[in-house]
């Protein structure tokens, strides 16, 4: 493989990895506080992408405005999902909440089919993102550099919230022990809603960039990225934000690089993530950075 091709693949992998990382953070945060796999997370990504599509096409808003509106809309949706479908089941067996999550995901998808129709729609790409930089013979799409940078900014902001603010402290406390945190006077319900808002905002940001990268939106676009990002969260160690980022990047690189080096494997692309998942679960079920969660007897 020539060097310029390698650079192109490198940036593609970094982009895909950043997108997975952003989605994976949402999974890992929700799992951290509620011990629940939020199956609807991938669909929130889809809704975010659709909001941008409508912002730019239907209302003619500029890109920045519709992206911010979409992120806000998606985080409201995330909070709503938590309020309606997860909060009533907090004392129920965990599996009930999981089934409820699957039902919500199914609901959002089928509602999207009704409201937005099942047809994939093209997304307008702003010119400044699809132009290229050129260094010698290496061409790099500006978008593939923009996505990792944007991701780094968002992750830095998130880490600031988690480690330097009161709500972040409360989130970390809840993930250790929800009951004690409640007794310490933290309004647990509000903090959990806040967790969903932040996670959904990141998912929407990822969904918007996803729609820019692969320029179309359709109601089922969130399923595969959602599943793979969950795998990334497990690989990195569920409950750990840094782990989710590392897991996402690993997954992005494995997916792009294995096809770059072995093009005949491209049909198996969707299987890589799950093979990695199985390997990780067998050899190190807590993931790379995960804490050892002791099962309570």
């Amino acid at each position, binding site marked *: 493989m020539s060097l310029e091709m390698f650079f192109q693949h490198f940036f593609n992998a970094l982009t895909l990895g950043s997108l997975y990382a952003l989605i994976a953070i949402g999974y890992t945060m929700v799992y951290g506080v509620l011990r629940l796999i939020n199956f609807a997370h991938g669909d929130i990504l889809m809704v975010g992408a659709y909001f941008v599509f409508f912002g730019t096409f239907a209302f003619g808003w500029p890109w920045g405005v519709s992206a911010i509106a979409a992120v806000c809309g998606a985080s409201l949706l995330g909070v709503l999902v938590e309020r309606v479908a997860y909060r009533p*089941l907090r004392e129920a067996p965990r599996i009930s909440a999981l089934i409820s999550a699957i039902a919500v995901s*199914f*609901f959002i998808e*089928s*509602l999207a*089919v*009704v409201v937005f129709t099942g047809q994939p729609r093209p997304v307008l790409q702003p010119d400044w993102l699809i132009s290229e930089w050129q260094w010698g013979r290496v061409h790099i799409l500006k978008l593939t550099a923009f996505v990792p940078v944007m991701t780094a900014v968002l992750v830095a902001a998130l880490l600031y919230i988690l480690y330097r603010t009161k709500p972040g402290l409360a989130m970390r406390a809840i993930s250790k022990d929800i009951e004690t945190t409640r007794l310490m006077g933290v309004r647990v319900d509000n903090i959990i809603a806040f967790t969903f808002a932040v996670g959904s905002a990141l998912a929407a940001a990822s969904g918007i960039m996803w729609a820019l990268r692969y320029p179309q939106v359709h109601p089922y676009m969130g399923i595969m990225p959602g599943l793979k990002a969950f795998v990334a969260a497990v690989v990195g160690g569920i409950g750990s934000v840094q782990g989710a980022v590392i897991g996402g990047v690993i997954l992005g690189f494995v997916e792009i690089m294995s096809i770059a080096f072995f093009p005949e494997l491209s049909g198996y692309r969707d*299987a890589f993530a799950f093979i990695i998942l199985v390997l990780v679960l067998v050899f190190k*079920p807590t993931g790379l950075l995960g804490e050892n969660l002791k099962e309570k007897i």
Partner: protein
Amino acid sequence: MRFNRTTFICLALMAAGALFLTQADMFLSNYQLYILKLFFINAILALSLNLIYGFTGMFSLGHAGFMALGAYMAALCILPPEQKEMMWILEPIIWPFSELFTPFWLAVILGGLVAFVFALFIAVPALRLGDDYLGIATLGFAEIIRVLLTNATPITNGSLGIKGIPDSATLLTCYVWMLITLVVIARIVYGNFGNVLRCIRDNEIAAQVMGINVFGYKVMSFCVGAFFAGVGGALLGSHLSTIDPKMFNFLLTFQVLMYVVAGGLGSLTGSILGAGIITVLLEWLRAIEEPMDFFGLVEIPGIPGMRMVVFSVLLLAIILYRREGIMGSREITLAGIGRFFRRLATRTAGREAQ
């Protein structure tokens, strides 16, 4: 098996059901027969998932994968060789499968066995994991099966799928397979084996402490469930006459999970009831996708896809307001029905006496 009065009545009821079904095409429309068949197949799927999840407590989301294996195996078995040669246009079909031609009952069993073997293979890594991790791992395996089926073009015809599968799954065949599934799983679950499974479900550590080989029992339950999922898939493929890898996605697993949850985890009759109600409901909900006309005054145009929205809201409602499902973990038994009628009789008698 003890031959007491209950067994005898059950056998008589089953035979009466079979007799009824042989005559069913006289007074049921083709559409109704189609739904009835779908109900029997769905009941098989629900029963098998209930064994894995409801009775053993293993949260498996890989059912669609097992169904896919069963469906493909059976389709390859019952398609005549010359038809297979014509259909595999991307790449010619490879040897053992190109000549394979078996009767339908053997095809169904082979479909189940393929799923069984694969379940055995994935059980070793997957069943070490706890609840939601197990769910994700089995979901991953189902996706891997789907990707493999898409890419194994010389065997599966790739993403084109297999069309024109002979409709050998008659009403009676589906009914008999449902009864076989019911009886086998009921014998497993309400025997000593079932007590062990429930013990594992309710407290795995206690089971281990009592000296139960937890892993072995889990593998057994998982594989038997997978076998019947394969059987259900085989019947479904023949019933629909077309299969392709896209069909066996996560939504299919989700549907089966819903039959089980709606019917009640840990209730076999509940699973059958849940499968029946949801199958009929899904067909009945097709009405809301048709244009509606209220007395010629207001006309509501049909909304495609609305059916699934209503369906998912219903499921959400079940989980939120009646988590234990229709039956909970109770069963409909002959003794229970007898008690019900006796109570009804005494109540009417009491009213007459007044």
